[in-house]
């Protein structure tokens, strides 16, 4: 049987699978090529879908429905506690799925803020409701104009720093720190910088009403979600090739005609759709010298600059945090970020090429919603850390790994004093690791930062925000395309819709 097909999708991340599914459903023969293998045992007796994110709150219902994920066995876990923030003074703040409970917890810190919280949440809800339909469309410059001219409140909130908007509303550091922790995801700079205002809104789009960002987990772990997506795609006839990297995209006369795999095999196709980062796609798979210089320069100028590290811990028992009164408080995100200033100082270090002595930590306990990942009674902690700059000043990640792990553990020791003695295994993933093992350029989670200059019709670069590329028959469908990163499923579904429209199907 010929291995040629209508469409080759590069990468079996969420977006690649979602695009493959939609294209196959429209009658195309689709092959997905993914460099990574199935999720391995992370430690003896422990399994974890490492590359995958831990929170599925952003995944849109339209995508869940289109792939029939619920029918394929995906169950979402929505714990009552969404975020728990232990404080340096031994107290804590807890946000819940139900806003009245959140307000009660806030009231123990500030009656002023407790009184404002519901109105703030409603305001954010109004703004994200305006934003939401734009995230589902192929972006145009006209659309940006409409937003800029017609939505002054959205522009006001999206265009300033998160610190600014939080200061408009609140006085309490613990609350503002916790909320600000969502505003810097995937960003190089801190909550005092522009773009954090927009990221805050982005993380609240698709959120429920309790006050923390969009958040929910997948029963059995994120690997289950991916498996269901694979099942859905294969159900439409999509073929999968795992553990096979695409070495380069075949070009003829400025058009993509297929791919060459790392083992030298050639596969021809009418269309190539890449969910790899734009930089990887254009520079490694297409090669810069096959691009016209002006476009090449734009791709070269794209900002990636990852700042996220992850420490996975296998522990022999559940940790206990300061300010914790009940076990359920650890069901959601455990956030170490006692103030916006704390977060900004962490960002300062990253800005100058170092990691901070007091980092932002966002911890989830994977075994809460997926106990089968670990031996009975033992647990897996997913610790996301910022700011770990991709480029270290005067040093390298090879030299700094141990020091970073130690910094994270020391910070943790201040909030969960006994945890260190329970550690069975640990694994650190630096921004360089994200790049080398997961294909994330410069370790950028979002396949290019979600700064306003790289959003909407300007994502990935100005002039090419409609999923098509200057290379004929080559499309982008990953987080590097609109609306960007996070497990929304939107780049994949938007791209597939646009491709079919371009084909006149």
């Amino acid at each position: 049987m010929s291995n040629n097909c209508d469409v080759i999708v590069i990468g079996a991340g969420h977006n690649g699978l979602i695009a493959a599914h939609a294209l196959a459903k429209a009658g195309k023969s689709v092959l997905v090529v993914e460099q990574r293998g199935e999720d391995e045992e992370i430690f003896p007796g422990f399994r974890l879908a490492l590359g995958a994110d831990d929170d599925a709150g952003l995944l849109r219902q339209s995508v869940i429905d289109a792939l029939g994920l619920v029918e394929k066995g995906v169950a979402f876990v929505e714990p009552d506690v969404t975020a728990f923030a232990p404080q340096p003074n031994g107290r804590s703040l807890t946000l819940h799925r139900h806003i009245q409970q959140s307000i009660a917890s806030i009231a123990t810190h500030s009656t002023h803020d407790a009184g404002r919280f519901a109105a703030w949440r409603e305001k954010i809800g109004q703004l994200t409701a305006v934003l939401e339909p734009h995230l589902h469309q192929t972006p145009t410059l006209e659309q940006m104009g409409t937003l800029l001219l017609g939505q002054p409140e959205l522009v006001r909130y999206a265009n300033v720093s998160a610190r600014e908007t939080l200061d408009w509303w609140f006085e309490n550091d613990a609350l503002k720190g916790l909320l600000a922790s969502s505003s810097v995801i995937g960003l190089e700079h801190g909550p005092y910088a522009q773009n954090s205002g927009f990221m805050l809104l982005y993380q609240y789009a698709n959120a429920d009403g309790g006050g923390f960002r969009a958040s929910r987990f997948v029963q059995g772990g994120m690997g289950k979600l991916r498996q269901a997506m694979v099942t859905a795609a294969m159900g439409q006839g999509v073929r999968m090739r795992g553990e096979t990297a695409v070495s380069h995209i075949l070009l003829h006369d400025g058009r993509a005609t297929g791919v060459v795999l790392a083992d030298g095999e050639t596969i021809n196709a009418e269309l190539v759709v890449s969910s790899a980062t734009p930089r990887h796609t254009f520079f490694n798979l297409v090669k810069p010298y096959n691009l016209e210089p002006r476009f090449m320069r734009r791709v070269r100028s794209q900002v990636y600059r990852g700042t996220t590290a992850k420490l996975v811990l296998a522990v022999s028992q559940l940790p206990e945090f300061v300010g914790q009164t009940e076990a359920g408080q650890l069901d959601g995100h455990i956030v170490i970020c006692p103030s916006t200033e704390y977060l900004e100082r962490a960002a300062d270090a990253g800005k100058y090429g170092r990691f901070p002595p007091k980092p932002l930590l966002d911890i989830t306990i994977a075994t809460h919603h997926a106990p089968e990942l670990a031996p009975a009674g033992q647990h897996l902690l997913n610790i996301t850390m910022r700011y770990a700059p991709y480029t270290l000043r005067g040093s390298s990640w090879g030299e700094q790994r141990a020091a970073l792990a130690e910094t994270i553990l020391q910070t943790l020791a201040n909030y969960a004093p006994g945890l260190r003695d329970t550690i069975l295994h640990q694994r650190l993933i630096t921004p360089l690791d994200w790049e080398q093992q997961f294909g994330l350029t410069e370790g950028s989670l979002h396949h290019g930062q979600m700064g306003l200059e790289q959003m909407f019709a300007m994502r990935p670069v100005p002039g090419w925000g409609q999923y098509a590329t200057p290379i004929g028959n080559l499309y982008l469908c990953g987080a590097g395309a609109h609306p960007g990163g996070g497990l929304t499923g939107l780049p994949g579904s938007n791209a597939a819709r646009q491709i079919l429209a371009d084909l006149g199907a």
Partner: protein
Amino acid sequence: MPLPTPFHTRTAPLCESHSWRDWSGYLSPSMYELSFEREYWAIRNAAGVIDISPLFKYDIIGPDAEAMLNRTVTRDMRRCRVGQVFYTPWCDETGDMRHDGNIIRIAADHFRVTTADPMLRWFEDCGYGMDVTITDVSTRYAALALQGPNSRAILKQLTANLDLDTLRYFRMGMGIINEIEVMITRTGFTGDLGYELWVEAQHAEALWDRLMRVGRAYGLLPFGLTVLDMVRVEAGLLLIEVDYIATNHAVIDGQKSNPLEAGLDWAVNFDKGEFIGRKPLLADQERGPEWRLVGLEVDWAELERLWAAVDLRPKVVYRTTSRESVPVYRGGTNGRLQIGQATSHLFSPLLKKYIALATLKTPDATLGSEVDLEMTVEYSRVLAKAKIVQLPFFNPARKRE
């Protein structure tokens, strides 16, 4: 204040007119004397030398140097052999001209490009991701253009190691002058027999001194940019920002032009594979370019006729090239229709004709046909009968022999 070139200590005392121009940030003589004539006739009848050090120079070195240039320019650089020089334009992705220049192949993996405008970033962008290093060597090398019928005889006196009789047009050889290594290319901007000498900047003065000493017996004179601008029109050579506008300088799309429109179709090779701007150029080739570069000639009888109307002899002599563009029409005074513009024009003292480089609408650009060139006769705009002629206007056999 513009910078002195490596020859400044020698050119400054000779520049009696004190008329200097700013050429890419360097002080450059416009004319050495108060009249252009001796310099002009030296080039055509004896020899002239001009300091061309302000040109930008780039070394393109590495295993991918040929491939990098081949994707950048419109000519097939694979056919440029070591020791050969190619004149070529290059385009941006729209197929419009970004610039033009000479490329010298010094070795299989070593080229030197000379340009009038800075081009480092463009070349770097064109070669990004390729195994090639691009270095701006503009200040490392000083350069002279030795031009005119006596130029070979002079050069023979200077360098014994290089056989100048076999150094062909657009070829390069390494000469030793006064123990100084000099790269000699048989190139120039005059359309005459001539050479360009490239030397490390610290040897500039020694080269100049030796050249002028030997050249005296051959009537060698230094010349400036004013006269260069005259002889290059006679030679039918385009000047950037005058006869065409580079894409990065164009304010509106209408100002841009592609090589097919600029008379450089001979320098566009569609068969060599992908290069920047190929697709739109090919489309334009198939459609037929809208514009064509032509040469226009107004003969002496016509000039006399125009000025006779005001009882004057033609007031065109003793003038240098005008870069003030003027309209070209067809259809005579009644019902005239503008078909283009002349961008460089002058009375050629050598040819005794008024000549112009003009860009005309293709259907009106047929060789031999007659058009009307606007001229000014005593404050009045009049139409001169001009003939479309083959370029270059002046093409002596000695240029290539």
